[in-house]
């Protein structure tokens, strides 16, 4: 990893011309077996890092399509997205920890849930692949889920931003005001526990189940799941937005690290040069994002996240409705 980074710094600026090919700022990826432009990859990293630092999502949904668009084979894009997120989340968690934004107790419960759910999700994915409909199920899942979460968040956060002059509006959004039968039921579940950093008290089963649900989805979608986890924590667990960002990142660190190791072990698809370059880029973005996030009011942060989620949903819809210029696609199999 660091060797790749060092080589990149030492030799990245060496402009040389091999025949007709201009290899200025090019980096050859030993696992992906292709050359990429270093500046481009650094910029991808910075963009994803910025989002991570700002709203606590890993950016897997963003980095994977960006890399595929650059010509990186899909399996390598997915795997290195996970490796990069593990690195970015490690850095970003550190900053969030400094700001006191991580609820470790909540993170561990969520993590236990998401690992359980993740294991089940892998099994489910395997069944769907055998049925031959995996790709389509995943796309529909994305559109429906992201569309629903995104639009709900968008409406809520716009309202919150508009009504920001109401001084003692609850930090965790308007939904806190409505006790329901579900709420009453949840309050009577066993294993009641206090999560002092988040300032909530609930049965540990609630985050465990939510974690499991997210875990299943992340297995199916092949991403860290921050963009599902974050809204879940804000709206269902009613945690303060800033704590949510930190906790999500900390939780993401372990999920993505596990995925990264498994991808390398099973598919040989982790490329240290690619992941290293992405991480290097993401650090600038993360720092800037976290600083901006610390100064920004919670409802604006939620608005930004809502826009990101809606953006991804719109992009997925575009994939579904825009006629492709070439209906066939070719990918080199990675040994």
């Amino acid at each position, binding site marked *: 990893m660091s060797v790749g980074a060092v080589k990149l710094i030492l030799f990245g600026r060496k402009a040389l011309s091999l025949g007709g090919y201009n290899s200025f700022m090019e980096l*050859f990826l*030993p696992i992906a077996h292709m050359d990429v432009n270093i500046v481009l990859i650094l910029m991808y990293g910075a963009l994803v890092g910025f989002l991570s630092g700002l709203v606590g999502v890993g950016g897997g949904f963003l980095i994977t399509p960006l890399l595929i668009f650059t010509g990186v084979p899909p399996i390598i894009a997915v795997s290195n997205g996970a490796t990069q997120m593990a690195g970015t989340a490690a850095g970003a968690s550190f900053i969030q920890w400094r700001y006191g934004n991580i609820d470790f107790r909540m993170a561990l419960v969520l993590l236990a849930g998401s690992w359980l759910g993740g294991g089940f999700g892998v099994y489910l994915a395997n069944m769907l692949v055998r049925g031959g409909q995996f*790709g389509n199920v995943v796309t529909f899942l994305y559109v429906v889920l992201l569309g629903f979460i995104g639009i709900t968040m968008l409406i809520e956060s716009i309202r919150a931003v508009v009504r920001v002059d109401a001084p003692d509006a609850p930090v965790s959004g308007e939904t806190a005001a409505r006790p329901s039968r579900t709420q009453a039921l949840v309050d009577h579940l066993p294993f009641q526990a206090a999560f002092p950093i988040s300032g909530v008290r609930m049965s540990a089963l609630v985050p465990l189940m939510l974690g499991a649900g997210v875990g299943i989805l992340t297995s199916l979608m092949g991403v860290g799941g921050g963009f599902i986890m974050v809204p879940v924590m804000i709206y269902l667990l009613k945690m303060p937005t800033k704590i949510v960002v930190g906790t999500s990142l900390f939780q993401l660190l372990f999920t993505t690290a596990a995925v990264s190791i498994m991808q390398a072990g099973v598919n040989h698809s*982790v490329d240290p040069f690619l992941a290293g370059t992405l*991480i290097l880029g993401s650090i600038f973005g993360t*720092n800037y994002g976290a600083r901006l996030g610390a100064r920004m009011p919670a409802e604006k942060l939620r608005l930004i996240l809502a826009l990101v989620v809606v953006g991804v949903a719109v992009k997925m819809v575009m994939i579904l409705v825009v006629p492709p210029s070439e209906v066939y696609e070719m990918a080199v199999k990675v040994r």
Partner: protein
Amino acid sequence: MKHSLRLMALAGFVLPFLAWADDAIVIEPATKRVEITTDFAGADVKTYGVVDGPGDLIIKITGPRQDVTLSREIKWGPLWIGGGKVNVAGAPSLLYLYATKPIASILPPAEQDKYQLRLEGVQMRIEPQLLENAADAWRQAFFRLKEKEGRYLEDDHAIKVIRHRLVVSDIMLPGDTQIGKYEIETLLIKSGKVVGHDVSQFEVRQVGIERWVWNAAHDNSWLFGIVCTLAAMVLGFTLNAVSHRR
């Protein structure tokens, strides 16, 4: 009579070999090894040769075999969704047909088939096995994509012959070229017949850290994954800690 027929058949079989053996054409790449290092972004393999007189030349460059996955989208109501996927095995990763004139104009179709000088004549295996019609659609898509990417191409300006003797040609390899052995097959053609033939090779391989990383990732994949992921975390953590303290 029968005897002389047999003799003629034998001569017909042996003579072309004799013609090749007297070196009507010799061609060699300037380098036998193309080495992939960190700043590899494609290569230009210079190839030189000598030919014993006027005639047309065809240089066929065949890359190592490469397995690919083909997928396609189908229209389902107003939506475009995934509609199947196959593996294509056994086809060369790259196929260049360089010539001094369009191949169709210098060799009759039968000879083109004999020397496999058709881009779309490449043999491949489609998995899972399909009915001929279905397999054909995938095969056509394969060729169309390969040609669009410039991996399968025919170029009748790529060979320079100087004073009917010296042959110069540049083989351009893309940045994500497949690792392995590349074959260069050269044919000398006079009035629609192949009168000279030469085969040469070069190898594309990873060296140095590239090779080491590739081997590590494949020989000890789990250990490699754990080390890479931990390194990623340490890198992210360290860089952040440093830049945060600033």
